């Protein structure tokens, strides 16, 4: 074949035809492989890493001596960094973003991203700049500019001492008996897992809760502050709305959404119609004749695929095609539809309502009014598009007559108890943990298909939480084991066809001396109190 000027473009198009609609492997399995590699593969060197970085692909063409110099520089840096790390082994946090100035020691040095903060040192955020700290348990402390704080070890956790300024804490759920504290001159706020703001200045302190519950102690008085509420030790501190008080945050939009959601939750509980500040300009809701499509491989076998609507979003229009109401509610309330299904569909994270909310599909076209911030589809599906989410909530309320309520419901669970013969675990300081799922490899032997792991924090709570994610229903710990311990468990998930792999219950009994049984227990769920097929356009 002699290609000519005339048909060269056709040749190019034809060349790629086989790849245009190429079926792709299971996304879930591919992501599991990424996580497995994260745990099992050594990190590549910086020079290898940069080769695929967009815009730097010509690095390989640089003179060889540059690479040699780079390697020497890296080795020197690694050596110095190693020494520094060793000297700061008792670090309390690292700086994830921004910088702070160390003001307690004689060296008023700046500490930057990835630097470690030690207990007892006092830090100040510079004028106009804040910082984000990451604590060892994964909790995050966002520090406003011009704030002074230090970190202190507490008997049952960590204490952030705020002498001036403001912080927003996103506390991960603490292990049993553990707390995260923020102490100012006149109050101490204690949490086990929540998001809240603390302001401190010469007048006093204010604690505002965005999500979860915070216990605030002032002298001998203890007060529980609910989400969407605040407590101040001086009345003048509450003059400024919380919305304004969190505007400095890097995650102000997400926090605002939490705040609004808390307000909505209170209204839902009170049985009131959801009040929203924004609505779509025009909404078209068209039912589909029958369910079609579905992304095979994303959901585990046996789970109803209710999350495969396609979302398109531009500044003027939101388009969701082939969506179930289940998916719309997840979008509106900032939840991951797939995660709801994968982790909790057996337990009905969204309970009540007719069967059609998971089975009937709709095409939604909605006009976005001017003045709304521009979001990407990823921000919406990730729960970071508060204004669009509020408009979706409004749409569900108006067109589907949706009324949601938080309820406690008895659902199927797994219960962990100690097996006959006692637990085969050892309390220890090395509490690294690992759970691997197995599948049959090409050679017929079991091979890992996914992994959850951590270098610290092995405990019953961690084990139960991870098992819950894998098994798709809550796992209740009734072992009475309160101490930390390291563990490694390998098993095949129930829907995996792997005859030579252990089941979860067999693996837990053999490896850890624990029994896993099916049972029922009460958990909090979102309950669909009322819903109707959508009204005519």
């Amino acid at each position, binding site marked *: *074949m002699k*290609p*000519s*000027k005339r048909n*060269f*473009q056709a*040749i*190019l*198009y034809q*060349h*790629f035809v086989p*790849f*245009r609609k*190429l079926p*792709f*492997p299971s*996304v879930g399995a*591919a*992501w599991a*492989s*990424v996580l497995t*590699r*994260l*745990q099992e*593969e050594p*990190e*590549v060197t910086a020079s290898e*890493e940069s*080769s*695929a*970085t*967009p*815009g*730097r*692909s*010509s690095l*390989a063409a640089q003179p060889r001596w540059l690479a040699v110099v780079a390697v020497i520089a890296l080795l020197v840096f690694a050596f110095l960094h190693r020494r520094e790390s060793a000297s700061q082994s008792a*670090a309390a946090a*690292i700086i*994830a973003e921004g910088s702070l100035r160390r003001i307690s020691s004689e060296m008023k040095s700046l500490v930057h991203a*990835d630097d*470690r903060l030690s207990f007892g040192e006092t830090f100040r955020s510079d004028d106009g700049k804040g910082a984000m700290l*990451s*604590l*060892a*348990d*994964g909790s*995050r402390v966002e520090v406003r500019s011009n704030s002074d704080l230090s970190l202190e070890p507490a008997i049952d956790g960590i204490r952030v001492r705020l002498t001036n300024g403001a912080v927003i804490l996103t506390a991960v759920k603490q292990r049993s008996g553990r707390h995260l504290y923020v102490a100012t001159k006149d109050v101490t706020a204690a949490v086990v897992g929540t998001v809240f703001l603390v302001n401190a200045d010469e007048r006093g302190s204010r604690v505002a809760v965005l999500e979860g519950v915070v216990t605030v102690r002032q002298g001998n008085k203890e007060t529980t502050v609910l989400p969407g509420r605040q407590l101040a030790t001086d009345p003048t501190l509450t003059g400024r709305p919380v919305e304004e008080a969190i505007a400095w945050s890097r995650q102000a939009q997400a926090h605002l959404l939490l705040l609004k959601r808390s307000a909505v939750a209170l209204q839902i509980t009170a049985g009131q119609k959801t009040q929203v500040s924004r609505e779509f300009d025009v909404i078209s809701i068209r039912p589909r004749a029958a369910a079609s499509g579905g992304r095979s491989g*994303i959901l585990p076998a046996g789970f109803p695929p209710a999350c495969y609507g396609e979302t398109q979003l531009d500044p003027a229009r939101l388009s969701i095609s082939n969506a179930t109401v289940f998916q719309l509610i997840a979008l509106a309330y900032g939840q*991951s539809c*797939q995660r709801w299904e994968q982790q909790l569909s057996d337990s009905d994270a969204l309970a009540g309502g007719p069967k059609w909310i998971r089975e009937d599909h709709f095409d939604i076209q909605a006009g976005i009014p001017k003045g709304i911030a521009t979001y990407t*589809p*990823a921000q919406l*599906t*990730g729960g970071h598009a508060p204004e669009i989410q509020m408009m979706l909530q409004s749409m569900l309320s108006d067109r589907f007559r949706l009324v949601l309520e938080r309820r406690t419901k008895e659902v199927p669970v797994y219960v962990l108890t100690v097996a006959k013969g006692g637990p085969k675990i050892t309390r220890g300081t090395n509490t690294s943990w690992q759970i691997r799922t197995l599948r049959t490899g090409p050679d017929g032997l079991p091979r890992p298909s996914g992994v959850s792991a*951590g*270098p*610290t924090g092995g405990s019953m709570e961690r084990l139960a939480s991870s098992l819950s994610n894998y098994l798709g229903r809550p796992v209740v710990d009734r072992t009475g084991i309160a101490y930390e311990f390291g563990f490694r468990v390998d098993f095949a998930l129930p829907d995996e066809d792997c005859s030579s792999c252990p089941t979860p219950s067999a693996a837990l009994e053999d490896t850890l001396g624990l029994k896993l049984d099916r049972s029922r227990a009460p958990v909090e769920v979102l309950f669909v109190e009322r819903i109707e097929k959508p009204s005519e356009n």
Partner: protein
Amino acid sequence: MSSWAVSRVSGSVQDLEQLFREHYAMLYRTAYGLLKNAADAEDVPQTIFLRLLRSGMTPDARSNPKGYLFRATVNLSLDKIRSRKREVFIGTAQQIEIAEPDSDTNDLEALNLRLSEAIAQLEPEAAQIVLLRYLHDQSDADIAKLLGTSRGAIAMRLFRARARLKKLMRISGEGK
């Protein structure tokens, strides 16, 4: 991995998983279109996200994740091709034997082989544009938006990329 690295990473894992799920099909097909090999095509997006999990999102990746991921996929795929020399263009020994065509079908396969080799020799930026146009069927405007440049620049680079491909394939004519 140290506990610090784990804690630093944990905050963004969900966001990255979301991005992975959203763009996996495009990245896989892009890598496959260049590498012609399923195992390598699976490896490329995984490797990119592995690096993002370890080192976090750069400002570039945050502001334009789809563009960043696409460019990274093309760059990494080209690196793989170049590191494997000629072997990467041919999946099996059986296909190597098609090098001497004696029919229209084999002519076409030989042409595709030459085109694959030529694309692998393009500059990454040119390969990105060629793939977006001819694999993903994107307009100049869409390509410009994804790669953060102007339509005019895309049209010019596409013209030059075609001319370069023809030159590499020893085909006469302009780059149309």
